[in-house]
């Protein structure tokens, strides 16, 4: 396992902001504007996925449900992120592990990363 985190969002500035926050903390970050596929998740083997709900032409909830229903990827933690107040309900519906409400606090992003990546690996890298 790595400290690699996949961030999926259709907004470049959000991707850059997330990259800065996580890389400053020593995580390896890969980003996608078009949403991850099962194949890309298998190939990249991220330790955690931050997944936006409203991506251009793509519904993050469907992506999450697909990841969670495939036995090769269902173990990868998925955090659903959105500005929608109902993100908690959406997360339950599609089997996401947690939520990140936009606009988010840096500390909240790091808390989630810590919880889902490092607490399961027994230590920090970087």
């Amino acid at each position, binding site marked *: 396992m790595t400290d690699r985190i996949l961030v999926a969002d259709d*907004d470049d500035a*959000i991707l850059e*902001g*997330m990259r*800065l*926050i996580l890389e400053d903390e020593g995580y390896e970050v890969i980003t996608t504007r078009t949403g991850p596929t099962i194949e890309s998740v298998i190939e990249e083997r991220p330790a955690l996925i931050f997944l936006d709900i409203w991506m251009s032409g793509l519904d993050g909830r469907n992506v999450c449900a697909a990841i969670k229903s495939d036995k090769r990827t269902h173990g990868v933690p998925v955090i659903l992120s959105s500005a929608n*107040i109902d993100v908690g*309900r959406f997360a339950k519906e599609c089997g996401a592990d947690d939520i990140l409400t936009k*606009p*988010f606090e840096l500390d909240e992003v790091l808390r989630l990363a810590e919880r889902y990546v490092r607490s399961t690996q027994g230590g920090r890298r970087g």
Partner: protein
Amino acid sequence: MLAPLDGLGTDLATLPGMTHQPPTRPQSGCAVLVHPDGDAGEFSAMRVADLRKLVQQQEQQLRVFDATLSTIADFAYTFDRDGRFIYSNRSLLDLLGITAEEIVGKNFFDLGYPTELATRLQHQIEHVFVTKEHVVDETPFTGPTGAEGYYEYIFRPVFAADGSVEMVAGSTRDVTERRRVQEQSRQILDSISDAFMAVDTDWRFTYVNQQAERLLTRTPGDLLGHTIWDAFPGLLGSSFERAYRRAAEDRESSSLTDYYPNHGRWYEVHVYPADPGITIYLRDVTQRKCLEKQKDDFLAVASHELKTPVSSIKAFAQVLGRRFTASGDMESATLVGKMDNQLNKLTNLISDLLDVTRIESGQIRFRSHLFEVDPLVREITDQIRLTAPEPVIRIDGCAGCSIVADRDRTGQVLMNLLSNSIKFAPVDSEIVVAVSADSDGVAVTVTDSGMGISRERQALVFDRFYRVLGPEPDTYPGLGLGLFISAEIVRRQRGRVWVESEEGAGSTFGFWLPLSGGEPGTPGDD
């Protein structure tokens, strides 16, 4: 004056309830009279003197009958088989300006009625003779003296002993004034912009104004006399049906706006109990609903789109803050921290706009669960102290219990009340958050020693977009949404909000929530 009597029996038959057949006048001086019940009795060798006495009695009865009928304003008359007058009371004679002798034996053509009307009346008399059924109708009429009026009349069959129609009796009433009032009402109802319909106790349309005809694209013939359920089957099972039945059965007025799928349109309806039946005012609000939806959609998208750049700016600011802190540049770190605070304010404003949209479109959701009130009060108070260290905020009392409600939304209410008080309280004053519980619920009040609110304005503070005016337009910042949102959040959780204030002596804003305002574990519960 009596019309000339053409045979005793004929005139007797004009009396209500009498069905004498015309008697034959025997050459022997005897008459054969047929009793009304059909039993015949023969009077043989009746003396002429007795017969004359009988005739005199009958003529006296007729005079009484005529005098009686001539005291009423309505016209009363009888016709023979050919539609000729046998009798007319004084009122009709006066209208026509003729004598009793002049009218007998004449039909409507002879009396100079307009051809169209005379033909119609003649046909209706014939119709009564043939069908043995009465006719009710109305007509405008101008008498020879120029008196104009509108008349309602009824022609009834007078039956002979053998069941055939012997003559037609009728009466006519001047309904000019009633028509004028009806016409005035109709003009008023037609001139109002709403569609208006009246429905009787059998749910049949009795009146439909022009707007209703246009709106429902029906003619009066399609609706009048038909039941509302036959004319609009889509109403069955709808919220409209429930409102109509409430008005008819429980005598309750109500108003509602709903979508009618059969028309693909939105209607705003006001229903009132009437006597008899109900009245319905209808307005097509489809366009307004479409515009509202466009506005709601726009605000929802705009709020979402505004939050996206705020999210990234916030991320950049926080990364910068951490880097400045790590490099020891605390001054820059503080500046970036202030930037972050402003971004939070911006986020709250966007959230308020989104909340108003949700409240107005009925989409606001509550995730209710059991939570302790006191920790929430402390949490919110601590949170606001971080951004506003002054004035001092003091918590007074405690609830000591838990309630079932949406914790986040309830916290939002307290945050709004506190933010509002801070805005108006002097910096060196104290704001008191008082918490208490009763057997049914929990009350939280926020008291400041600010400028206070006049009695008239107290009624407005929970209205949408209400803002307190200061010396300058922007003296007191805000969109005027916080108290409106708070009030809606509390009301929708079956609680209540209030304000107590006196100008110059501070204000107390409070809310009360029931112990179980929300259903725990409802869909959407986080």
